[in-house]
């Protein structure tokens, strides 16, 4: 186990390093510069003065070296657009994205498992078709369109839910739920259908196994067969895809946060990229990469624990 962890840790460090190189050079290759240099009416002298202040007159490779040297010491630099420490800007937004993605994951897993099991147990019946149809719709409909439609329905027409933002500090649970409902629902469309389909096929495979047949033959109640014997084994492949869904969730957050005015990391990286705030783009990318690497790492460990056939060490 220790050697497995050490090996994964080493791989993760290499991965984060590669991501940092690619991101730094890509964002610097994008045309234009920090938005302070990109005003329509800025003179060449103004642009040069700002570039010098921001240290952008150095070659990209030198700037990357400087960034890396600071980053390994935990200093992600200062945001080019506001002068605040990058860590501070990320800390303002990270909890909101964390709240949104964790809740979405819980909802997706919980609802996805239930629907997946129903679809498997009622295979080729109307409810199976209905669930499959909804899963395909969820995967195909663009989330920004769906988000705007929900906004028009629940906020504008019915006025049941707030149209944007997060609940004010000190709000009760119910008020928080009203603010979270639409963003979580929309973000779920990027993960829920996958979990449903995985669970369905995994369940179908499991219930055709001999031990399930044996349990039924012994007269064990169907509910116990399904939810105790079969589901435990059917869950194994589903756990493995959660790691894959995390980046998808964080990607989906960009759109959801923009439409619902949710002050999270997704919106921050869009703002940073548009403003060519190089240091902030790097900071957000590195933090997101670390989250993805860490969750995949945890998923691997959990996977090896719940499936004795998998030996990582």
């Amino acid at each position, binding site marked *: 186990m220790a050697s497995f962890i050490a090996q994964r840790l080493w791989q993760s460090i290499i991965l984060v390093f590669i991501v940092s190189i690619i991101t730094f050079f890509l964002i610097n290759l994008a045309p234009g510069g920090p938005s302070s240099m990109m005003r329509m009416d800025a003179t060449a002298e103004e642009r040069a003065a700002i570039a010098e202040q921001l240290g952008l007159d150095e070659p990209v490779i030198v700037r990357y070296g400087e960034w890396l040297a600071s980053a390994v010491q935990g200093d992600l630099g200062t945001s080019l657009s506001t002068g605040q420490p990058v860590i501070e800007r990320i800390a303002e937004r990270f909890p909101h994205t964390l709240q949104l993605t964790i809740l979405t994951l819980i909802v997706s897993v919980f609802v996805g498992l239930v629907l997946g099991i129903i679809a498997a147990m009622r295979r080729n019946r109307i409810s199976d078709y209905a669930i499959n149809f909804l899963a395909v719709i969820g995967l195909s409909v663009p989330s920004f369109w769906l988000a705007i439609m929900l906004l028009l329905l629940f906020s504008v027409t019915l006025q049941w839910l707030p149209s944007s933002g997060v609940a004010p500090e000190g709000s009760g649970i*119910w008020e928080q739920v009203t603010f979270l409902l639409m963003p979580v629902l929309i973000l779920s469309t990027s993960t829920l259908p996958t979990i449903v389909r995985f669970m369905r096929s995994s369940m179908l495979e499991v219930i055709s196994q001999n031990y399930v047949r044996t349990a039924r033959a012994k007269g064990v109640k169907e509910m116990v067969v399904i939810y105790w014997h079969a589901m435990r084994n059917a869950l194994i492949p589903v756990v493995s895809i959660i790691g894959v869904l995390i980046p998808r969730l964080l990607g989906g957050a960009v759109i959801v946060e923009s439409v619902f005015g949710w002050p999270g990391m997704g919106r921050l990286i869009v703002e940073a990229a548009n403003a060519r705030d190089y240091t902030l783009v790097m900071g957000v990318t590195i933090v997101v990469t670390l989250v993805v690497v860490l969750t995949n790492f945890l998923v691997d460990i959990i996977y090896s624990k719940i499936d004795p056939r998998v030996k990582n060490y």
Partner: protein
Amino acid sequence: MKFKSSWLVMLFTLMLFTLAACGGGSSSTPESTPEESESNNGGEEAAPAQGGEISIPIVADPIFNPWHPNAYVESNIVNRIIFSGLTKPGKDTVPSPSLATEWSASEDGLVWTFKLRDDVKWHDGEDFTADDVAFTFNGLVLDESKGANSAANFQAVKEVKKVDDYTVEFHMNRPWSALPAYLGFNAEIVPQHILEGTDVWNNTEFNKETPIGTGPFKVVNNTPGQSVELEANEEFFLGRPNLDKVTYKILADVNTHIAQAMTGELDIFSLEDTSSLERLESVNTLKIEPRDVTRYYWLGVNQNDERFQDAKFRQAIMHAINRPAIIDNILKGYATVADAAISPNLEKYYTNDVTQYDYDPEQAKALLEEIGYTMNSEGVMEKDGETLSFEFDVAIQGDLVTIAQLIQQDLKAVGMDVELVTMDWNSMIQKDVVERNYDMMMNWWTYPDDPDVYAQYHSSNADTGNNIPNYKDEEMDRLLELGRQTTDPDERAEVYKELQAYMSEELPYQYLWYPQETIVMNAKLNNVPDLNYGASLHYVNEWTLDQ
């Protein structure tokens, strides 16, 4: 079953934990719209209604320093109510007093003297004096190494001298009649006692948390990514504002602005995309008002390209484009056809006695033929064996791409083989403005309520400055310089009328339309002066909200 229930309890606990992580957990407060939560202490007919709170959308977090290199667009409309300038846009488009009570220029136009109010206090209680004005200009704006926002507007200013506590002199490099107008255009004064000796652009306590201004509202709470809350400045030098509170909500998506206007969560904003206009007009709690704005949209063809240097080519472009159709169909009528650079709201200076270009594709073709082009079998104009092919750059911004597509069709119809290239704003500035690496582009200019358009037309600003088409013409330079030096308003008006006539003939830019802003407002919001949205914010202290 035992497994199932324990699993559910675990999930439920985790959900509660996640919810609690981002909030308090006290009793729930009911939803309330701004109107419902107003204090109710006004409403007499004689006196303006007192009290009330309004919400305004902005698309990103603002920076509370009007001169910060990154403070523009969303920051401008926030800073306008926190800080004050020496002047502000007048309701009659003539600069109006603000921190300065009166001003005058010396005979030679090289010294401007401004008398300042002596009853102004900063939000922290300190007195506002001439030192603050001198610091703002000498310390920030005129220091080229700082790259202050809008510093380019003040290139004519050499230095600012304090005469006494309430008098300053602007010493000029050259005469500049437009100085008072520019001092009311994103040129607010910042406090010397707070900023002097600090790293101004990285002073996050001031720029991002608690700015100190002299304006009608002061920041009480800034939640990044969510909102900036401001309350009335009881000590405001023109008297306490009528409203109690202004909240700027940070909403990146314009669809959200529209939805929130419909639900009463937003009280005023300028509508960028007119496609939702009809939906908003049907909401009886809103009023939609067109407002004139000092702005014009244009096409520019790069004058460093020989193909575009003949005025007849540029005139052909003007005849080829169906501008009335663009105004009717895309802009929903909220614009008028433009033929020069001075917008009609500058009544004293504007003239329609200029060369006008009807939509006339045949005339466009005839003009191209006059300069040696012939139509080939594929319907493309040719000259000396070369087809008339060029790229048309447009930034993805509001309605611009849709309009550019219509323009492309119109130009193709007269034999110009135009390829549309869309890009993000930042890329467009780099390619077209910084590198001047373009054939044709489309954009707009906004300027203060003054006809001085020297920066966008003078040959000294070609290739590196704001003369983006790189147009160089001696007569144009002469008129621009004359306009700057002439102090008598009537004489000045004549100069600018002559300039417009010359522009409309020569077409350094190909003029498209003078827009009208579409302001979406809560029907209960009153006393917003009949100015464009940005300028009306200078009068936020006068706004009232009916109870």
